[in-house]
Structures are given as structure tokens and as C-alpha cells.
């Protein structure tokens, strides 16, 4: 059992104007058929033995609270500790970049003072990855750092939402928003001593409109903030294209295995769905198929959410279909994201292109 509590800031959206994210917090975005993005930080913390997790909520928290409930599915329905649903200060904020607003942390100071564990694990819900937080804490302790931040060298240019750290020999010198190829992209996972975090919140009280790591920009000489490199599969989710690609990436048994290894499963809300049913004549290849699905038609290179029906003669190619969607007989879907509970009428064609994925909003 690590001596840590978890704190997930779920009240940030993205700078993207893609309507995939309109009206819902990123944290409750459905992902890979049966998950929501918040399942990743929650599971990472729980899998490390953390049983005390606070979630700072966005203003439109209905879907998120509906999903996490009492925290039971993550073993967070505890007598002592467990899951804490906490308010944010800037409701509906859509800042780009940093996601640990000092004001939000100060508002929930009590969560940090009434627990006595040594460390706080900070996270957001924008990064798809399976992190061994137990190992990360061990690394933090071994390095003697004040703060350890989890990073990965960016594989492409231009994500304005991701934070970059400039470092020498793994020690952070400064931070800024936006990341270019080869730079250290911050995965929004950090380990910090609880007492130190409380001190910093007091010290930065006058600049509480800043992000914690932004406020630290003048203090990186004083505090040892060390980078821990992450070497597993990771995908930042900030726009429609990255959301779509992350789903498609997992149409690879090895990547899927890396993201959901045995021993560190990604936990999610349990549903009493029957197994997926493939009817006589169904044609399914290169697909992720969730429980409760019924497939009569054809599905290729696609990810299907729970309780999806693909009727006879219908075809789904290179698409992400969220839960509860019915694709009626003969309908054709290609290069598309179909949001929850849509009924795609018989014979309809919905086609996007590789470069511009079609999006059908939630019904």
C-alpha cells in the first residue's frame, strides 16, 4: 500500500473546437467501447494500491458522477478514504495547457489536510496510458526529488494543449505550453509530497489563477523537479483526430495488451450486458466488439461500444461507434465517429475521409 492519495482534475476541456467534446467533460468521454477517459487515471491509482482519490468536478458533472458512482467498481467505496467528489472553482473553464489550477487545489485544501499519507499523485484525464504508479513513487523516493513529473518525448509537432518541460539531466528548468517533436511532453502525472504541496499552495496564494507548474516557473532553481520517462503506449486526447486515432491504435492485440496488461487492468463501471452476439452471416474482422452488441452485418477496422446493433446488410468500416447506436439495414458508415444512442436509418451513407473524420453528435 503506497503512502499516497490521488487527485484527478476533471474540470478541464480542450482548446479544440471539435464538437466531439462539446457538452461533455473530457473525463467522461467514452473510449474504446466500454471505458471513459477518467477510467485510466482512476485505475492507474487504484492499481497502485491507492484507496483515497479526489476528483475535481466540472460544472456539467452528471455523466461523470453517473459513471463513477460511489467508486465501487474501482474498489473506492471505502469506510476510510475512498472516492471524493470535489468542486472546482472555474466552472466550465477551457484553458489550454496546464491543468492544475492553484485555485482549484486551494479550494479543496481540506482534502489534502485531513489525509495523512505522505504523497499526492496528481493527474488529469486527457492521457490514455497505463502507468505503474507504484514504480513511479519508488523512483521519486530514490531520486530525492521534490516533485517527479511523468513525461514522454513527443513523437510529433504541434499539440498546443500539452505542456513541455525543458530539462537538464532530467531536472526541470522551465515549463511552457505546447509541444514539438522530441520535446518532453508532460503526461499530467506528478508525484509531490503532501506537505510540500500545501506549502506551495500557501506560497502561491497571490497567483492562484496560474497552474501549479506555471507558478513554479520562477522556482525550478529552488525545487528539484525531476522527469521520469514513460516508455509504454500513450496517447494525448485533445481533439477529434487524436480521439479517433487512439481508438484505432488499439486495433492491435499487442498495443491493447500493453494498455490493459494482466495485473493492471483498466477498471470501469460494470454493466450486466450479455456477451456480444454474432448472428449467422455476420462478417467481423479487425474490430473491437463490446458486450451487448448484436452484429448481423459487416464490421471492419472499427471499435464498437456497448449495446450496438449492426443490422443485416449494414456495413461499418474504419469507424468508432459509441454505445447504444443502431445501424439499420443496409446503412453504410465509413471514417466516422457515431456518438451515443444514434439510430442510423436504413440505407443511409455516412462517410468521412481519412483526414476529416465525420462526426454524428449524440442523440
Amino acid at each position, binding site marked *: 500500500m503506497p503512502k499516497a492519495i490521488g487527485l484527478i482534475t476533471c474540470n478541464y476541456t480542450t482548446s479544440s473546437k471539435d464538437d466531439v467534446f462539446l457538452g461533455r467533460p473530457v473525463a467522461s468521454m467514452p473510449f474504446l467501447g466500454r471505458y471513459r477517459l477518467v477510467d485510466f487515471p482512476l485505475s492507474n491509482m487504484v492499481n497502485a494500491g491507492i484507496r483515497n482519490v479526489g476528483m475535481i468536478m466540472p460544472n456539467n458533472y452528471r455523466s461523470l458522477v453517473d459513471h463513477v458512482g460511489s467508486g465501487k467498481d474501482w474498489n473506492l467505496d471505502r469506510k476510510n478514504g475512498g472516492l471524493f467528489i470535489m468542486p472546482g472553482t472555474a466552472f466550465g473553464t477551457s484553458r489550454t495547457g496546464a491543468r492544475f489550477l492553484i485555485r482549484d487545489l486551494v479550494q479543496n485544501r481540506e482534502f489534502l489536510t485531513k489525509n495523512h499519507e505522505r504523497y499526492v499523485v496528481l493527474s488529469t484525464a486527457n492521457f490514455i496510458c497505463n502507468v505503474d504508479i507504484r514504480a513511479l513513487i519508488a523512483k521519486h523516493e530514490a531520486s530525492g526529488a521534490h516533485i517527479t513529473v511523468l513525461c514522454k518525448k513527443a513523437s510529433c509537432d504541434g499539440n498546443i494543449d500539452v505542456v513541455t518541460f525543458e530539462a537538464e539531466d532530467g531536472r526541470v528548468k522551465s515549463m511552457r505550453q505546447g509541444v514539438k517533436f522530441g520535446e518532453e511532453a508532460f503526461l499530467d502525472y506528478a508525484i509531490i509530497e503532501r506537505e510540500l504541496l500545501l506549502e506551495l499552495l500557501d506560497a502561491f496564494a497571490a497567483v492562484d489563477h496560474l497552474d501549479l507548474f506555471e507558478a513554479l516557473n520562477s522556482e525550478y532553481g529552488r525545487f528539484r523537479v525531476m522527469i521520469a520517462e514513460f516508455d509504454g503506449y500513450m496517447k494525448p486526447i485533445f481533439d477529434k483526430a487524436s480521439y479517433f486515432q487512439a481508438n484505432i491504435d488499439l486495433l492491435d*492485440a499487442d498495443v491493447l495488451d500493453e494498455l490493459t496488461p494482466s495485473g493492471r487492468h483498466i477498471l470501469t463501471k460494470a454493466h450486466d450486458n450479455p456477451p456480444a452476439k454474432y448472428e449467422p452471416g455476420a462478417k467481423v474482422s479487425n474490430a473491437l466488439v463490446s458486450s451487448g452488441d448484436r452484429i448481423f452485418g459487416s464490421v471492419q477496422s472499427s471499435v464498437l461500444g456497448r449495446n450496438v446493433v449492426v443490422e443485416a446488410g449494414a456495413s461499418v468500416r474504419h469507424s468508432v461507434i459509441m454505445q447504444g447506436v443502431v445501424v439499420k439495414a443496409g446503412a453504410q458508415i465509413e471514417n466516422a465517429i457515431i456518438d451515443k444512442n444514434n439510430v442510423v436509418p436504413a440505407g443511409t451513407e455516412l462517410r468521412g475521409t481519412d483526414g476529416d473524420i465525420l462526426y454524428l453528435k449524440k442523440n
Partner: protein
Amino acid sequence: MLLAGGQGSRLGVLTSQVAKPAVSFGGKYRIIDFVLSNCANSGISSVGVLTQYRPYLLHNYLGTGEAWNLDERGGGVAILPPYATQTGGSWYAGTADAITQNLGYLEMQDPEYVLILSGDQLYRMDYEDMLATHKANNADLTVAVMPVPWEDAPRFGIMNCREDGSIEEFEEKPKEPKSNLASMGIYIFTADVLFKALREDAEKEGSSHDFGGDIIPTLLAEGKRLYTYQFKAYWRDVGTVASFHEANMELLGSEPAFDLYAQDAPIMSNSSTRPPAFIGPKGSVDDSLVDNGCTILGQVEHSVISADVYVGKNAIVKDSILFPGARVEAGAVVINAIMAERSVVEAGATFGAADEDTVTLGDDAVVKKGDE
């Protein structure tokens, strides 16, 4: 009171490690899920589960009963294995004896009516409706019955009834049945009648302490009010490998005999959270059920596939049932077979054949190439 202590010896290796009610079924369930879901869907919140044979997996699976919404204060699931008292202890000697030994639990619950169930049957029933019949008849005992084909009647306990549904005569496995109404082993007793009957039966020399064999005939002889409750929907007692295989296959097809997808009474289970099933680029699945966590790189046809099953490249699985964690390695062929949990058919090996009896592979067993 749910009788879940049976070994299910006719299921062979499938029950060598687990009790029959805990045997995997339908890709995502264990057999006991059906009865527990019926209880939950019928508004019953106190369920005593009587266990005896290899109970570890069953106990672990039941937990607090939370998966079936049966984790209630003052009620919920109570796991009732045989226990010792000041005068020693003994195994459950029969269905009635199992309840007799737990009269203490029943008296603590202080019910008006007691529903006796088997943990190894597949059906959907609203017990509330059966209880309404029981009350309307002012009955002491109501036995759920269903019509079976006349040629099968000699295998069942047969109820000969009057027109009002009251029971005139009970015959256990009659050679020349007078009725085709078979007892389903589902009983509602008015509690004080049950308690008295059990206490008297316990003292009786030569009794086999069985509901069908002893309690029902005695109550009939005493002139108690015994009624039937007619059930006409899907019901299966999966006692043998053949009937177990058939019941799984009945979940398939475009109009399955038993519809897992019926919305009004969902079958609940203590399911694990695993990612969606991955069907590989050269994989194919036809006329099958496949649960989460599977990796299907080969061909699956007319089969029931549970969670975390692996079917390798160019492997073929047909007319088969694979329990959680089973592995069919690359190029292996599995036909008309039941593979229990974590069992393996290694690369290139063949297991089962279309025109022979269904073959079974026990938990953790391995079939190597050349073994067949």
C-alpha cells in the same frame, strides 16, 4: 433457500474443480446467475445459498451478493455450508436435510413463506407470481411444474393433478406416467408447515431426507393443501454434457430458444471488467457469442466464447463452448467440444470431432499435438 451443494457428477471433468452451479455458462455467466437473477428480479432480498461440494469458487463468486443487488442489510445472500454444533456435525444428507440443518437461519429470518430453489437450472421465472398463486390457493406447498414430452416423463417426478391444480398424487420416475407435468424442483412452502415437516422428517427412520422422495409424499398423506404452479416458458436442467452443450447452443441463432437480450428481466452476473473483444484482421466470428477480453485471430463458428479466451491464427473453433481463459493456439482445431477454464489446445492439435459425442477438457488441462 437455494440448493447449490450438488456435485453434478454427470458433467464429468467440468465439475472436477467446481460445484455445478459455478460452472461457466453462456459466455459470461455461471449457472447460478440465472436463479440469483430471478430472485433479484422477483424482489426477493434474502437468499440462503446451501453449498457443500467444492465451494471455494462458488463462495468467492457469490461474495456479498452485490452483483445481483443482494447485498442488503438484514438480508442479502447468506452462504450456508455444513457446520458443526456441540453434538458434532454432518454433511448435508439430502435436499430436505440441508434445509433442516439450517432451520436456525430460517427462524432468524422469520419468513412467512420459504421458496426452495435449485442452483443448477436455466430459466426466467417471476417467483412473485408463483407466490401469488400459492396465496390464492391458501396452499401449504406449491410445486412448480411444467409439461414435458410424454416419452421423457418417466425421467421426472410427475404430479397428477385435479382440475383446480391441486396435487392428487406424486410419482417419482413412473414407468407408466398418468400425467406429463414434471416437478421442476421449485417449491414454495408456508413456513410453519415446512418447519414442522422438516422436524418430523429428521426423526423418521429410513427417510432419505429428500423433498421429492419424503417430504411431499408425507404432506400428501397428511392431507395438506398441495398445489401446482404451471410454468410454460424455457426451462433446462443441464445435468449432462449433452444437455449442457445443447442449452448453450440454444442461445445462438437469430431466434434463440432462450433470449439473453430480453430487457425486462436481465440476467446479472459477477462480471470482470475487461476490454472489448478483439477480432483480428484475419479472424472471423459467425453465429456465436463472444464475451469481453477475448482475442480472436482465427475462425469461430456457432460457438459460445467466454471472457479472456484466445483463438490463435488459423485456428478453428466450431460448435464448441470455451470457458474463461481457454486458449486455442495457432492452427489448432476444436470441434464439438467444451473447454473448461484456462484449458489449452496447443498449436496444430485437434480436439473433438463433428460426428462424435461432445468432448470435454477440464480446468487447466492441456491437449498437445499428437495427444489426440
